[in-house]
């Protein structure tokens, strides 16, 4: 059903999405924590910046990142002095671009989970001799587990589904930046509708299963069976 090139695109997409999800969980958690708890004036502006990819066309984001990472951009100059070379049209360039592009999909579910916890579990933990770090890892993280699961799934799926940013930053290099969505685009351009169909249908199926999972988590998180099934 899939050609060797298809499989390579699928593997690349999976690798990209997994990397981006891991980076986002590490990066997004402190941002979500800060947004959920701060009373600072900066809460609004920072929250808006995080949410920007929700409303901007991916081409805008991709365009500016291409410039920033290019030979004359600040990121590009930095990577060149560090001896990494240039990021555009590379796998890691895609990772960085995707991290920004998928940021709200990870930060917002985690932030919502943190906000819905309220102050009480933190206070209870403090009266049970938990310092701030222990409170975070032993109480906050397990209680916010549904939020983390939703965030990971959405971050992963959204990265799988991106196209515009990839095209702007990554181009179309087999095994390096040619992900499934780009592969489909290529097939359509070449009028190979049959191949486009099989990949597209696979994507639809994947998206449906993922969303089913997200709704399942949301429903189960309200019942005790969710906690029991650990």
């Amino acid at each position: 059903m899939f050609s060797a090139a298809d499989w390579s695109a699928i593997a690349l997409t999976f690798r990209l999405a997994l990397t981006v999800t891991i980076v986002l969980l590490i990066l997004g958690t402190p941002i979500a924590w800060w947004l959920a708890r701060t009373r600072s004036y900066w809460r609004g502006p920072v929250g808006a910046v995080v949410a920007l990819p929700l409303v901007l066309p991916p081409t805008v984001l991709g365009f500016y990142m291409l410039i920033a990472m290019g030979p004359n951009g600040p990121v590009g100059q930095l990577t060149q002095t560090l001896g990494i070379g240039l990021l555009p049209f590379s796998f890691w360039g895609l990772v960085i671009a995707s991290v920004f592009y998928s940021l709200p999909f990870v930060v917002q579910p985690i932030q919502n989970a943190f906000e819905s916890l309220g102050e009480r579990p933190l206070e209870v933990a403090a009266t049970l001799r938990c310092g701030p770090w222990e409170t975070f890892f032993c109480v906050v993280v397990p209680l916010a587990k549904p939020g983390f699961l939703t965030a990971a799934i959405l971050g992963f799926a959204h990265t799988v589904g991106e196209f515009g940013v990839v095209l702007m930053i990554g181009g179309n290099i087999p095994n390096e930046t040619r992900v499934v969505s780009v592969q489909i685009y290529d097939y359509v351009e070449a009028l190979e509708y049959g191949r486009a169909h099989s990949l597209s249908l696979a994507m639809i199926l994947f998206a449906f299963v993922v969303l089913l999972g997200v709704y399942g988590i949301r429903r189960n998180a309200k019942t005790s069976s969710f906690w029991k099934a650990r």
Partner: protein
Amino acid sequence: MGSVENDIKVQLKLNKQNSFRLDIECHLPIQGVTAIFGPSGSGKTTFLRCMAGLERPEVGNINVAGECWQSSELFLPAYQRAIGYVFQEASLFEHLSAQGNLQFALNRAADPISDLFFDEIIDLLGLKKLLNRYPNELSGGERQRVAIARALLIQPQILLMDEPLASLDQSRREEIIPYLSKLRKTLSIPILYVTHSIDEIVQFADYILVLEEGRQMAEGPVSDVLSRSDLSAFSGYNTGCLWEGKVVERSEDWHLAKIECFSDVFLWVKDTGVEVGETLRVRILARDVSLTLSEDNSTSILNKLPAKVADVTDDQDVGMVLVQLDCESGSLTARITKRSANELGISVGANVFAQVKSVALVC
């Protein structure tokens, strides 16, 4: 004043945005149950949260048994204070079973806990059958019992309880009260107990701090403070006194128990399955005490105590007076109409018989 090591010294000043102020300076005993009493908005929960380190007052000096928890240079965060805290409403970790919640405390207790102590706590609070349940499978009362056990298992120096019964309905409250009484009798841990219920005070408390609008109105042993008629919370309809007595006799035929409150002052109370020799606490409300000039044997009232009038004061109700009585070494208050007082010629020094219509047995 007690020795330095044996009390809790607290000085707190706090201004919140919404014009709420707390200004308290008190010395509390570090034994038994100390009730923090006041109407809602009087600052009693804030007081407790300051004790716990959950709230940071602008000025605060807290010394517990000679150990400084807060001063102008120091503020120990909550997790470094040797406290156990029971919150007003459910506070169990939802992601852990009852057992898991208790284990959470066990893992962090100051000293390793013997299985014996663990079993004692489980037994005391009747948790054996609940251990495998998750918080949302427990009733409000059961959750609160688990929360109390959890706070005890951390092995605190003081247990702080913020209206642990307030979020429960009457029947749940009655279900949990016996556990609290047992706790008070069995364990030696000092408890600060926030409440707005006089019933709970007379049942558990040994010492009381009365707050109103962020200030302390009174402080002292419960039996002293509760009989003060100058405190609005305890005056009028609620005026009464608290006596303690030892069970000396049980009359099984009549389901009555005789307790000796002071030498030669006996009261008959309902026998609730007490043991001879056990100490009971009774509350006698002024509205349940009537007066006769001579001992009346043609009455249904069982408890008739000879007494001497010590004082007669006006009640909040213009038609009533409060008669303070000396009854051997105890004092008693009767709330009667002005007209009766006048007709009987009640005046300071008069000898009367106090008829106690009912005795509320509190524990």
